[in-house]
Each structure stands twice: as structure tokens, then as C-alpha cells.
């Protein structure tokens, strides 16, 4: 059905199936584009993290590569002053609402935020923005894992896994605006919900929001940190 086309990403000629999402075409060809919310398997792109911007020749503004389908002859730049600026701001915005404490985090060294920082030379601390103070809010009720919403970047991957992959429907987004969060239907404990503790959400979470208890280095008290 879909024919093969050729496009250029950062001066590299790559082949892809027409209509594929640019983000995955780039990643498959070893070209990194920061991304948090998009999943290759998902039917629908949510385009909510806003980190995967690229420039495409002929388009006036940077576009999100997860929503952009590839076509013959497309010329893509994954880096430009505007793309870098958007990433820097978007990344710092996420950090401003993320309870940074990598040393004690269960996902230390396996965290997608750390990866983005490393790949793009960004600091894992706030340089311009104020910390929107977030206290740890940890649900330790499941047997082997925890959910800490103060680490969540609202990428929605866990919800996709829960609803579409394992089809349980234990978690979803609640509230709006700055109050938006991943929670069970009544914002209660996971153990009190229909959650089967299958750990699909733990496997897919790019940051230290869903994590295995065994990965926690040192148990820590709930306290405010930056």
C-alpha cells in the first residue's frame, strides 16, 4: 500500500514509507529527536509534550515531528536556533514542575529527561524559571511499585498502556490546567482501584513517576525538595 519515499534529515538521505510519522523515521535512522508523549504503537498522536519540534523546508514555523507525516523530497532539520530555543523552554517548563532529585530517584540513569538533557546539552536545573513547588505525593499502595505524581511529566504513556495495551482502565487524566494529573477514577489509591498491578505503566513511564520499589535506592521521607 504505502510506497517507499526518500527524504533528507539533517543532510542524511533516508528511506521511509510514505505517511509514516517523521519522529519515528528519524529515530529508526539513528537521528535523535527529543520526545516524551508519542508512542510508535499508538493509533493516535497526542502531541502534548511539545519537545519534538523540527524545521521543515517550506514551512514557516517549526512543527512537531510526531504529528508530521513524511513525504517524498521532504527536507528536515532537527536542529535550528528556533527548535533549540523551543526545546530549551519546553524542557525547563517541564522541569519547573518536576521534583528534581535525580540522585535518589529510582529511574536515575534510565530517565528520559536525563537523556534529553545529555543529548541536547541542557542543564538539569532551572536557570530562568521559578520552581512551582511540588511536594512528593507517593502512592505506595501497589505491592511492588509506587506512583509519585510530583515526578510525572503528563506524557500520558501510562494511560495508553493501561487503557489500550492491557485494557484495564484503572487510570486516566483528571482535572484541568495546572491541576491535571494521572490518577485513578476517584483520585484514590491504586490498590483500591480496579488496577491489576500488571506493571505495564511502570515499564512505559519515561521518568520516575511509576517505579519499582526495588529500584528505590534509599527509602526517603516525604519532604519538599528542589
Amino acid at each position, binding site marked *: 500500500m504505502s510506497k517507499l519515499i526518500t527524504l533528507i534529515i539533517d543532510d542524511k538521505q533516508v528511506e521511509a514509507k510514505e505517511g509514516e510519522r517523521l519522529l519515528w523515521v528519524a529515530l529508526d535512522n539513528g537521528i535523535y529527536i527529543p520526545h516524551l508523549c508519542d508512542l510508535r504503537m499508538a493509533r493516535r*498522536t*497526542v502531541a*502534548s509534550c511539545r519537545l519534538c*519540534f523540527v524545521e521543515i523546508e517550506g514551512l514557516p514555523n517549526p512543527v512537531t515531528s510526531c*504529528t508530521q507525516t513524511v513525504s517524498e523530497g521532504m527536507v528536515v532539520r532537527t536542529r535550528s536556533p528556533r527548535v533549540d530555543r523551543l526545546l530549551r*523552554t*519546553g524542557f525547563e*517548563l517541564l522541569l519547573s514542575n518536576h521534583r528534581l532529585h535525580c540522585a535518589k530517584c529510582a529511574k536515575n540513569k534510565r530517565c528520559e529527561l536525563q537523556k534529553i538533557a545529555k543529548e541536547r546539552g541542557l542543564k538539569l536545573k532551572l536557570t530562568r524559571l*521559578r520552581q512551582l513547588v511540588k511536594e512528593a505525593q507517593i502512592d505506595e499502595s501497589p505491592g511492588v511499585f509506587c506512583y509519585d505524581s510530583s515526578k510525572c511529566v503528563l506524557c500520558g504513556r501510562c494511560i495508553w498502556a493501561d487503557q489500550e495495551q492491557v485494557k484495564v482502565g484503572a487510570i486516566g487524566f483528571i482535572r484541568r490546567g495546572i491541576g491535571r494529573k494521572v490518577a485513578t477514577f476517584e483520585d484514590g489509591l491504586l490498590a483500591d482501584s480496579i488496577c491489576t498491578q500488571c506493571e505495564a505503566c511502570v515499564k512505559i513511564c519515561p521518568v520516575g513517576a511509576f517505579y519499582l520499589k526495588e529500584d528505590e535506592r534509599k527509602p526517603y521521607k516525604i519532604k519538599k525538595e528542589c
Partner: protein
Amino acid sequence: MNSVSPAIEQAYQLLRAEAQQKTEILKEKPVILLGTATCGRAAGAMSVLAAFQDEIAKHQLDVVLRETGCMGHCYAEPLAAIFKKGFPPLYYGSLDEGKARRLVNDYLVNDDPCYEFAMVALEPNDFFPTFDDYPRGIYEKRIILADCGLIDPEDIDHYLARDGYSALAKALTSDPAWLIEEIKTSKLRGRGGAGFPTGIKWEACKNAHGAPKYVICNADEGDPGAFVDRALLESNPHQLLEGLAIAAYAVGAKQCYIYVRSEYPLAIKRLKTALEQSTARGLLGQNVLDSGFNLEIRLFQGSGAFVCGEETALITSIEGHAGIPNHRPPYPATAGLHGKPTVINNVKTLSYIPHIIRNGASWFTSIGTPNSPGTAVFALAGKVVSTGLAEVPMGTSLRHLIYDVGNGIKDDKKFKAVQIGGPSGGCLPESSLDLTIDFDSLQQAGAMMGSGGMVVLDEDDCMVEIARFFLDFTQKESCGKCTFCRLGTKQMLDILTGITEGRGREQDIDLLWDLAEDIKLGSLCGLGKTSPNPVLTTIRYFRPEYEAHIREGRCPALMCKSLISYHIEPDLCSKLCNVCIGSCPVEAIYTRPDMLKGIYPDKCVKCNSCMVACPPQYKAVVKLSPPAPESPVGERGSEVEQANNPDH
């Protein structure tokens, strides 16, 4: 191309003739049309209605008393038009129960038209001026507001008698392709905010694969301060239904939705009545006007969130999910409701359709500017004398709109800025007053047509506070889906709040600017993309005001509470009146032995009561910014002298 089908035309002629007959009989009697739209009700129209009813019953008069919609003159509500044979038809404004009773007694019983309460005549005559005798009448050009307030929205005969639904009859005898061509030629642009060409949208939907197709009328109107759509729904619902039916026929849809916010109960009631009546007359439903065309229009009551007005969120909401925007493309015209091709148009956009079909595309393009033909409807509010709805041709200057249609600034204050387009729009300064308004010129200036909200600001309005106010709204209304809008608006709001509370830092202005630019570019939907406009325009045009807050702790408009203090001028205080003391809710005002009044700065909550209470012949209460330093206890006297010190 324009094959005339006699059956449709006949069916329509019959309906109209009946309606005209019925309304003609009414003209023999005196008629009172009282505006009871939401704006009229807020001003007390329902008690005026009761007074009219009561007085008419007392005198056993044969008078037609009808409730109508909004006439656009909100500053003069409650408002009634009275038609009586032998007299010019007149508008009476600012009615109350007493005036209503007098109008019945003096005018309807005794033939004295009470010119002293009359506002304006509706037809040229020898006794009283008409709108054309005022500057407002010269600049206003009413198309979609023309019948508002002059027809009973709950009686379809009023609409039919004025050629209502004749455009639908004409459309049904035409080729849909011709209709779309006509709308394209008219260059009608969507009035929901962005100004997208309506004909092109319809064409895309018509040509898109997939069935069934849908047409949705967007009547969410979540923008604070905008009420044009509400007024249209409450005053002339059939105009919208006719436009919607034409749109459906043109794109090949059989089902339409009107997405109306549930906070508009009167609009919903009047829409329901209108739907029932037009269905009963065969203008909707099965086999419309014997044409074979079937059409169903459903009302959908929205949750009222601002973001639900965004088209992709609106569609998700009709589908039964939380109203959260999605990435476009695909655009609704190709994949909308249930993934099917869908046209979404605003109430105003659809209300123009019958007029364009009836009068022709070239009539429409003869009004307004080449790229934005037609009229613009604004809800004038704020510090302007004549608040209310105004419909003017595109290309009218802000100056004419504010000074001629709106009759200038209240209380002889100085104009400072005009905020256009609500939370997505921007603030334009005095130097922009000669800007002629259309979609493109506003966009260039950093504002937006938006939903037609126009708030006039004067010297007492602080531009940083205005930016904070609008951002506070968008920040709370953000759906929270995407990073830039959810967190960016929160960061900007915190910075702005800091500045208005005297905690601004030198780098804040540049940081605000950078964040604003990134949020504009980075957000997923229009809410986020436009939310920085109030910040960007106030920095662009009023930067010194930001600097005064940050560098001097001074609010030039004396509005930001943390940056002002209240004082009583000894030279101006009468010493004997004491009114301010009684007005203060926290007993912060004291009397000195010499009877002069003073204010304890530590007790004062800056509620402004004393300033309002101090009689106009003294005006002794003053605000100072930056706040005068607190004087040590026991030396209250010196502080009063400070207030008198010209150095302040």
C-alpha cells in the same frame, strides 16, 4: 444552474403570506416591544414587563406587548420600542416600573408620547431625531443585528413576515455548488475568531470523502465579556437556523448540532422554541419546503469551558469525552465529528449566510474592506459611555467606534488603551486609534478580532494588571494537555503577579517576552497560542509602565494595591464632614485634635471606600504610588503633612 423549482417557491410564498397577514393585524393596535434578553433582564426588564402588563390590564387596553431580544443599547436597558398609529415609533430607554406605568397612562391612554423619556425614533419624522441624526447612526451598519429587538424571537411569523427563510427557499432551488461559489465570492470570513474563509471551509467539507457529513454551529462563547452570540441567539434565532440549514444543504449534511453553553438558559429556551416552530412549518425536518431535503438540528449543551469553543475540543465534547483539543490536521472539514467531514462555524458567521444568499455576494463585498468584507460586531464595554453591541462595516476606525458609536470615554477621563478580542486579543494604545479594523490589521497590531469583545481602558487602568487579569483567565482555562500552555501560562502569571505586587525583577520583562514568544509558537491549540497576546501587546506598547512597577515600585495608574497608599489631603479635607470615617470598614481613619482626618497605613486595607465616600466638593482622599513610607506611631501628624508635600 439556478433551476427554479416552483414547488419550493410556492410552499415558501404561502408561509410568508400567512405570516404577513398575521403580523399585519397586529399593526392596527399599539405595539410594545420590550427587550428581555439577558442584558435587559439584568437591568430589570422583567419588572418593567410586569408593570406594563399590570397597567395595560388596569385600563383594559387592547395592546400587543411582546418580549424581544437585545437592541444593542445595553447602557440604556431596559429598553422598549412603542408603535402607535399617528406617532413616530420610538425607543424608550432606562425604563423602570414608574416609567412603564406612565407610558401606558400618558401615551397609550392619553396620546402624550412622553418625549422626555424617548431615546430615538425608529423612522424619520417631524418630531424626534432618528439614529441617522446621531454619529452612531452614521457609522453603524446593521446586517445580522438589524432585526434584533424588533422581532419576537419566539414567534416565527415575525421572522417570516420580514422575508425570513426566503434565502433557504432560494438555496433549495439552487445547485449546492453554486451556493458554495457564492459564499466563496462573498469572501465571508469566519467570525469565530480566526477569520478563515467560510466558502473554502464548506468546499473542503463538500469534497471530502466520508458520510454522513455534519454542520456544527459553535455557540460556546466562553470568552469573558463577549455576548454577541448570546444576543443573536436570544434575539433572532431563526436567522441562525436559516443559515445553518443553507450550510447543511450546501455541503450535503443532514444533521446539524448547535453547541451552546449551558450557562445560556434563555438562549437555549428561545432556540428550542424556534426549532419547534420551524419544524412545524416544514422549514426543518423531513422534506424541507417540499424540496426532498431532510434536515435535523440538535441542541448540544456544553459544559461551558472556554477551551470547548476550540473546534477539536468541541467535537470531542459532542462525542462524549472531556473537551480537550487535538492536533490539526486533520481539520474537521475532512475528519471531524465521528471522523466524518464536518463544518464548524460560529453563530455570527452562519447568521450572515441568509443575507448573502438573499442579496448576493457582490452586495456583501460592497461593504467593509476588500479582504474582510461585511460588518464586524463588537461588544463595547469598559470605560466607554455607550456600552452594548455595535455593528459597523469592517474598516471602521477604532476612533469612530469608540468616540462616535460609543460616545467617548466615561467621566471625561483620558483614553489609554482598548483591549480587543478578549483573552486571545491584545491592548492597543492611543496611537492605534486611527487603525481601521479588520481581521488583518488587528492581527498585525498584535490583537485579534476574537469574539468581538472590546474593553475601553482609561488612565485609571494599569496595563500590567490588565495583562495579569487576562492571563489569569487563560491560565485557569488551560486544559493542561500541553507543556507550553499548562506550565508557561502559570510561569507568566506568577511573574506578572509578582510585578503587580512589587516583587518584579529587572529581568522579568525580557523573560516574559521570551516565554510569550515560545508559548505562542509551541502550544498545541489556539488557546495556548493566543494566550500571550495581552502580555506581548502591553509590553510592546506600554513597556514604561512595567518598568515603573519594577524599578520604582510605582503603579502609574494607581491601581495595583500593593503599590499604593491612601492619604487625606489636609488642604482639601473639610474637617467637619466625617463621611470617610463611617465608610471605612476597618476603622483605619482617625480624627486629629484639629479635626483633620488621617489614615493609619497599617490598618488600611485599600478598599477605596473613603475615596468614593469623600464628597465631590472636597475630593480630599488621594492615592499615592509608590506608597508613602509608614510614619512611626505617635507621629501621625507628620504623615499628613507628607501627603501635602508637593514632592510626592
